[in-house]
């Protein structure tokens, strides 16, 4: 299957390993990955901070760049959620009904990685090998906006060598929330403290999730504390094999 990769601006700029792993994984499963170079950002930060109008050119760009593709994947529940649930709203707020209709169509063809694998491609065992103790944080937008449900855990349970441990209070937000982390830094940090307490209670060496943004937040806290637990994107675990370890 031909799959267009929307890598997200965050992964492109700060966490390229998530994009590389998504590519490696899909190619290993026999799919053809394309990276339309004209892509930039989904505009979620603008929309969620109140700048819906400023996000209009970004919505238009996303729609134009990805309209030719039947299947689009993003290694992010949050960006996929924004594309599916906010792009049409932004277009409507700016009075562009035609763009809204196109955005809805492209949004419906945009999939978060674990949903693409489990729900669209029908695969749970991706042949990964990852001999580490891992806990999984279901990010809010994956969970409550996209309803990915058990998909990421079903993928992780099939990974060889993994020691998968359940995260206590997993469904509680880590406190990232985009610009919330800066505008309400104290509250965000208090939420992060509780999330880190849960992560550390698992004694996992790796905390994984389907979003680089939440991982940047949790990982930033763990790193500051020298806690001895690192954050790794779900795609990297699924891409790892005995021959090509992460």
């Amino acid at each position, binding site marked *: 299957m031909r799959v267009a990769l929307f*890598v997200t601006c965050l992964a*492109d*700029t*700060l*966490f*390229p390993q998530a*994009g590389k792993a998504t590519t490696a994984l899909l190619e290993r499963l026999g799919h053809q990955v394309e*990276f339309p*170079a*004209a*892509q*930039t*950002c989904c*505009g979620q*930060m*603008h929309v*969620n*901070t*109140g*700048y*819906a*109008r*400023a*996000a209009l*050119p*970004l919505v238009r*760009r996303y729609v134009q760049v990805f309209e030719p593709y039947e299947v689009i994947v993003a290694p992010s529940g949050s960006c996929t959620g924004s594309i599916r649930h*906010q792009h049409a*709203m932004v277009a409507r*707020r700016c009075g562009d009904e035609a763009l809204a209709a196109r955005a809805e169509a492209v949004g419906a063809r945009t999939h978060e990685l674990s949903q693409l694998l489990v729900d669209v491609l029908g695969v749970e065992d991706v042949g990964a090998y990852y001999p580490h103790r891992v806990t999984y944080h279901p990010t*809010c937008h994956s969970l*409550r*906006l996209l309803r990915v449900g058990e998909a990421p855990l079903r993928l992780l349970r099939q990974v060889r060598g993994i020691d998968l441990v359940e995260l206590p209070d997993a*469904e*509680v*937000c880590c*406190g*990232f*929330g*985009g610009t*919330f982390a*800066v*505008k*309400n*830094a*104290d*509250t*965000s*940090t*208090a*939420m*992060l403290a*509780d999330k880190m307490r849960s992560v550390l209670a698992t004694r996992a060496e790796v905390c994984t999730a389907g979003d680089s943004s939440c991982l*940047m*937040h949790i*990982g*930033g*806290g763990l*790193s*500051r504390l020298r806690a001895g637990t690192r954050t790794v994107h779900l795609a990297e675990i699924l891409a790892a094999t005995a021959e090509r370890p992460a």
Partner: protein
Amino acid sequence: MTGEPGVTGEPTFLGLPTAPPGVGHLRGSEPFPAAARRALADTQLRRNLGKATSTIRAKRARVVGELPDWEALRQAGQQIKADTMRHLDRYLEQLEAQVTARGGVVHWARDAREANQIVTGLVRATGATEAVKVKSIVTDEIGLNEALASAGIHAHETDLAELIVQLGRDRPSHILVPAIHRNRAEIREIFLREMADADPGLTDSPAALAEAARQHLRRVFLSARVGISGANFAIAETGTLCVVESEGNGRMCLTLPEVLITVMGIEKVLPSWADLGVFLQLLPRSSTGERMNPYTSMWTGVTPGDGPQQFHLVLLDNGRTAALADQAGREALHCIRCSACLNVCPVYERVGGHAYGSVYPGPIGAVLSPLLTGIEDNASLPYASSLCGACYDACPVKIDIPSLLVHLRARHVEESGPSPEAVAMAAAAWVMAGPARYRAGQRAGRLGRLLGRGGRIRRLPPPVSAWTAARDAPVPPAQTFREWWRER
């Protein structure tokens, strides 16, 4: 012909009036981040809230899980409320006609000040200097107790939690559990200090505390001539008012006094009894986590020889029509004040209700308060959320609170002038809207590598310095994804 407004016969529409400042409790004295910072430092508060909200969350989850048609009930609740808001004028006039026909008197109050004047005048006319109150957030919203006090009338709160708040000269911090920020030991101290008749040997067992309140209130109930309540629902087709509660104090206030005054936000009206059936299933499960609340009181006008012989209904606007005028925002008026969104909110659980500055805290408060006051008076509240979506999942009438928060943020940005943030956001959007500019931006961002020490950045410059106050930032990689893709 064109010309000045008025000349053409087209009046200039100035918008519907919002809740006025200077009266009531819809505005805080400081922005949310500052109030939250102080609240976060209160370790006792963190402990009390964490314990209370997790207990209610578990109870709610259990009883909601029992109902196979919960989603259908939510859907029904949402649709009934949407229909009611669409025809609010019609239902309110129907309610007025029915209440009047059954011997009640209906008063219309455009705002808090007018409502307080009406209620104060009604109590004065009875000659009473005391009144008993059922737990009511709307009377907290308008600051009724203070207004009555300044007219020499003492309003006794009779709900246990409201009594704790009143005796402690405190503010409610939760829609359902106003004293959620207090634990047993603190409540015991308040009772010993403020209740002249309290037993010095009072323990902090819940039964002992409840008994002390019961003894304290009994005298008040039996001598009260005026009762004041809010309303959970009002049924337009018959003019029936409904209050749901747990303690029975409400039943006493609604039946013992000669005069009953009910203050109700105009959004509380329901078209019919059949609609009430839906909400009596949704509300107790969502609020206290019970299948049904212990006391459901309903009354229709005045019944000679039984219960209050005078009934006044004060219908309050106080910014509600302004909220209704916001086509997206009006969904916030669907709220039935169950407080499920507060109990599941990770922000509320950590900062508590006082940080929101309004009697309506938590996720629903963060949308409702700015809608009622005008956004400029509660501008920090729509940002007091990580948009995690737990509130939307818990809401019994499916209010899409995260989308409303985003909508209000957009209204705030659109209604306020240029700001440094707006300039930065516009610049960021411009950079990202063009791939060449975006690539140049990535290259510039790579200068961040210079800040890296040991694979992490410990300090970023403003405006993102708040990030690195408690969190490391990642060091930009030597190669972006697109550079890697081009080379492979």
